[in-house]
């Protein structure tokens, strides 16, 4: 049974299941249902930041640090799918693998059109690693820098990697990234502007409201390429994990995540349902919309009514 293999840490079985999840093979999605029941143990640490900031390099150092503590580690690294060809170069692994041992499970995923920094299969791929017994699962986002809210919703601890010279204070103030990070890393800190960036960030962080609980995000300077400062980042991850448990914030985030996964699943099933409707049905509705004989909300209600959802027209 696949589930037994996954629970015992079988890499081949887990890797094949992850592929089935990525490719939406019905049997894999069925197996996932039982896998989910065995998740919730691993700490999920997300890493986002602009392309070239040094996420993968930093991650390589962090993996090594936690491996020295004998932790079981998994990594899900997402790279963008080309909107032109549909293909992708998955090049995070190459940057993080120096000094990383064979027991670290690294899985590269292509975004496959998913916006928000991750991919549709990411959270379920993390679940498989969790069920395998990993203590920590790192998730590295695509690297668009600003739109990566997915990481904050999927991870227990969200790390944002910045570098000096990437714009001024106004750039930093843009919504989303500042509010979502639990740990800030200023990588390539040997470069000019590192100290002033830290000062700007300090001011921003102090000025914002406590959106992510009562935790003041630390700002760590690193030079990941030569493993400087990365042990401090590892220590801060551990501190944050402690904070999450003692403050009750972990329960809250887990509940938020479960709710999100539920909504995503509803969306997926709706998509599948729409595809299975009799041919021509959607085309008819679309034609009526284009001809302005109906409106999108009414058309959506008609579809929902077919599901047998009755009652008040409050929706």
């Amino acid at each position: 049974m696949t589930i037994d293999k996954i629970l015992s840490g079988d890499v081949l079985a887990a890797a094949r299941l992850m592929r089935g999840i990525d490719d939406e093979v019905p049997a894999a999605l069925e197996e996932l249902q039982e896998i989910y029941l065995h998740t919730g143990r691993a700490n999920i640490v997300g890493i986002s930041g602009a392309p070239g900031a040094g996420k993968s390099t930093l991650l390589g150092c962090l993996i090594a640090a936690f491996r020295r503590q004998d932790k079981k580690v998994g990594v899900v690294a997402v790279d963008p799918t080309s909107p032109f060809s549909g293909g992708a170069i998955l090049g995070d692994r190459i940057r993080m693998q120096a000094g990383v041992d064979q027991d670290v499970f690294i899985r590269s995923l292509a975004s496959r059109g998913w916006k928000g920094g991750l991919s549709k299969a990411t959270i379920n791929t993390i679940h498989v690693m969790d069920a395998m017994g990993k203590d920590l699962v790192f998730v590295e986002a695509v690297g668009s820098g600003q739109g990566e809210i997915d990481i904050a919703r999927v991870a227990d601890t969200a790390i944002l990697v910045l570098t000096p010279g990437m714009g001024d204070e106004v750039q930093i103030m843009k919504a989303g990234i500042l509010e979502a990070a639990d740990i800030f890393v200023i990588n390539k800190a040997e470069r000019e502007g590192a100290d002033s960036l830290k000062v700007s960030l300090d001011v921003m962080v102090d000025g914002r409201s406590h959106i992510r609980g009562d935790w003041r995000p630390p700002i760590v300077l690193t030079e990941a390429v030569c493993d400087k400062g990365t042990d401090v980042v590892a220590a801060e991850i551990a501190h944050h994990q402690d904070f999450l448990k003692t403050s009750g914030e972990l329960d809250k985030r887990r509940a938020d995540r479960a709710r999100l996964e539920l909504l995503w699943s509803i969306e997926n099933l709706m998509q599948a349902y729409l595809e299975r409707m009799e041919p021509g049905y959607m085309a008819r509705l679309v034609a009526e919309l284009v001809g302005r004989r109906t409106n999108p909300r009414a058309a959506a209600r008609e579809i929902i009514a077919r599901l047998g959802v009755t009652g008040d027209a409050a929706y």
Partner: protein
Amino acid sequence: MTQERKIRVLIAKPGLDGHDRGAKVVAHGFRDAGFEVVYLGLHQSPEQIANAAIQEDVDLVGLSCLSGAHVYLFGEVVKILRERGAGDITVVGGGIIPDEDIVRLKEAGIKAVFLPGTPLDQIIEWTRANIKPHTDKAR
């Protein structure tokens, strides 16, 4: 929504050879052909390559070697994949490979050898004809 099934490929250079231009050209060509390519880079041991191929559940492994060590290194990757139960992953190779070694490589389980000068289109067409995402045989 039925997810379109992509071919997943691992491209790596085993051994000490440091000339990666060819491997990168193929990697980019594969991306432009719509495949998902895990580019593993230089100085990989056969164990590291096999391990990555299994973790990434690729359909195809492409190995590049210009230093002459291809018979040992390529054969070793196939051997380890088979030992670990992943013998269904196809392995192909390219680089500086004398004609007389092609037979030896095929006997060792290398499905195809692409010599210098092979048009990229040819490699891509071969892949499309011979490699399917293994999820196409979905249970």
